[in-house]
């Protein structure tokens, strides 16, 4: 009987640690997502409106490597059950400002692979680099069922966070999702 309180405590800790994974979207959606299945790939265009806040600019200007991580999930709805995740992908856009040369070193990675790099002094270009993506190939259509409906869900998180909360899980970030029907 004594072990039950300990088990309950452990269960609480596990749920605490797993909370970030199960965290539901906070706030309204602000990522506009447009998936486009074509040529064996699912291309996703997405834009994070208002992602580069003044705080983030200050972070960039401080010389910290700042990144936007977009976590994509290709999912299929299951009635009366948990939706099934078909595939996941991560797109990371990073920028680092050199206060000496006043230039931004930018890069984009898809699932850890460097896809593009750029150096600029233009802040607008930095904003664009971080928040606007056009036709990024994220998923293959080989795992998709023809004429089935899917949806792409994306969550964007900026790093590093300059805020702090006693609660360990991260409730910040923007969300977006879009549905599409796979027509081969």
């Amino acid at each position, binding site marked *: 009987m004594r072990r039950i309180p300990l088990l309950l*405590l452990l269960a609480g800790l596990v749920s605490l640690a797993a909370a970030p994974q199960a965290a539901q979207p906070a706030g309204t959606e602000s990522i506009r997502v447009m998936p486009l299945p074509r040529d064996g790939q699912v291309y996703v265009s997405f834009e994070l409106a208002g992602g580069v806040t003044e705080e983030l600019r200050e*972070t960039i200007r*401080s*010389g*910290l490597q700042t990144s936007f991580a977009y976590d994509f999930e290709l999912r299929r709805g299951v009635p009366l059950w948990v939706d099934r995740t078909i595939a996941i992908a991560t797109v990371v856009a990073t920028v680092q400002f050199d*206060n000496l040369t006043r230039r931004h070193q930018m890069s984009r990675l898809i699932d850890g692979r460097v896809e593009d790099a750029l150096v*600029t002094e233009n802040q607008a270009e930095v904003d664009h680099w971080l928040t606007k993506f056009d036709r990024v190939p994220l998923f293959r259509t080989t795992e998709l069922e023809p004429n089935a409906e899917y949806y792409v869900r994306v969550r964007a998180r900026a790093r*590093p966070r300059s*805020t702090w909360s006693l609660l*360990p899980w991260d409730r910040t970030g923007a969300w977006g999702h879009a549905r599409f029907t796979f027509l081969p």
Partner: protein
Amino acid sequence: MALRLRDAEPPTPSLPDLPAPWPAAAAPRRRPFRDNSRLILSGILLLVGALATLLTIANRSAAYSPDFLVEVVLYALSVADVTMLAALVFVLARNIVKLIVERRRALPFARFRAKLVAVLLGMTLIPSVLVLIVGSEVIRTSADRWFNAPMDEVLSSANRIASDYYRDRQKLVTDHAQRIARMLPAELTGASVPMTSRVRDVIAPEVTLERLQMVAVYGVHRGAEGALQVVPVIDVASPNLPAGYSRAAADRLAERTASGGAEQRALETLAGGGELMRAAAPVIGSDGRTVGVVVATGLLSGDLAERSRRMTRAYEDYMQLRVLKQPLTGAYLSFFLMLTLMIMVGATWIGLYFAKRITRPVQMLSAAAREIGAGHLDRRLEPETADEFGSLVEAFNSMAGELAASRQKLEQSTYDLQRKHLEVEGRRRYIETVLERIATGVISVDAAGLVTTINASAARLLGLDPYATGRPAHDVLARRDLAPLLDLLHKVLRGRAEPPAQEIALMRDDREVHLAAVASALHGESGAEEGAVLVFDDVTPLIRSQKVAAWREVARRLAHEIKNPLTPIQLSAERLRRHFGAAAPATQALVAECTSTIVAEVDSLKGLVDEFSQFARMPAPRAVPTDLHVLLDDTLTLYNGLFSHLRIDPRYDPALPLVRVDPDQIKRVLVNLIDNAIEATSRSGTITIETQHDPSNNLARLVLADNGPGIPPADRDKLFMPYYSTKKRGSGLGLAIVRRIVAEHGGTIEVGENTPTGARFTIELPC
């Protein structure tokens, strides 16, 4: 007369077996964790190690990358905080609920423990919360003070200076590159002079005049498929250019520029210190296409570059700190909170532990004391510590052991007492039974003269109330005829020597009763007089028998002495009559009258002597089973037709069995009694002869009653004495003989009043 009890021991009732001593109760289980000092020490060491680790992490927090700090360290600290908070809430809630439940159940020491826990928790939590609040505020305030306007201004200005310088230098290099690029189109496309020498002539002065450290020129050609090829044409480097620079960086810059890339600048940090600033400018031909690229390189000395970098780094560090102020503050706050929570949890747990440790032994002692009060003397406690509480527990155990031993002894004593009591009770009942059953009367009085015992025989013999115990003896024995008995008792109570046995005659139920009485003093264990006991026996039958025996002896001697001279007297009288047969008629008549008188009286005397002889020497009865009814009928036939006014009424019990009697002797008894009854009724009246069977006493009862004048009470007892008669004639031995015959048959004969008048003789014979 001594009263002897039987020697046999009275039966001792059986007692249940003495209860077996209770086995010692098993010792209670120990709580392994709370009382295991090694575990507790290990826990403390673990905690200290965790604290040291956290302290190290906290000290190095500024050196961590922001991502690591926020995502890992801060996350771990937040998780730890929430865990510690949950643990604290859990510990508090669990113990508070437990305390509430214990108080509601009114468990022993629940209120004291609740107070102790409340005080300990208050002493722990209140200061901890205060420290937490104050400490958090201090951390926040300090963190705010790290960043101030002057510092902002200084670092920002320094950074601006450095970056402006870099910008200017970069611009200069860019301007040179562009200028050189404007000068080269003809040389790169012209065919009159070799291209390299022409180019050299253009770019060499730039290096010589130390405007630039190196100038590299690339030619751009288009391949068959339109692919650009950037080919180095010539580069001129200053001899002061430090070694270790990378040509590939210049080549990449040229390629980038040739392909129209926006970024036409590059910065290379040299291994030996210093930085190379490169700027590329396309060489536009006359057709407007890029025919070449000029890459100009300027050098920033090591010191300058280093200082600039330092200024910028300082600025960036400061700005990054500012940006991460919240997470850093959060890290410190989390760490502080975690420390505080750990202290609170530890202090709370330790406080609760010690509260329990203090109250638990007392609780156990209280519970054990209750159990011992309820009779469970086998309850023992195991001392859990070696301190004063342990001594208290051991003292309790020894007290319980002594109580158990005392109880055992008490039970043993009680058992022995019960056994003795039962023995005494048995003996008392035995004595009481004996006293109630014996024919001897026993009266005992205490030292105050109060009657303590009157047995049934005493009550019957003396005609006393058998429940007169507790009354003074002089009240109980107040009758005049009991004065001798009272006198006996008083003599003994006054402490005189025990008087000898006395014979006392009383009148009971109109009969004379002879008692042989003796009184003795009762002494206690200490020898003090505790009273007296009066013992008396009914010796009336003995007296009677002695009288009868005496009379019998007299009768025998009398018969013997008288009978002898009677015959000579009779013979002499007859001889005289024969002698004077021839005498004168007057003399003859006189002699005949006198001799007839003599002979008649001698015959009468002979009859009397015969009766005396019979009384003296009665033969032993020859008993045979006899039907009394047949015997009675035979006897009654002797009286048939003799007395016309007399009615003899036989009433026979049909259930009367055969009785072992000597028919002749019983017949004689019947004849005697019937003759007496006939005489009593003056030959006219009713004589009732009744038989009864008493199966409970196994007796055959024969009742002969007449309706004559009856027998006065004063004469009833003497009726059966020899030579006592109410008739004018007779020897007076008839009823004595009757009694003797009945006695020799083992029976009794009593005389009483008949209702409404007359006498009633009752003979009881054993069946």
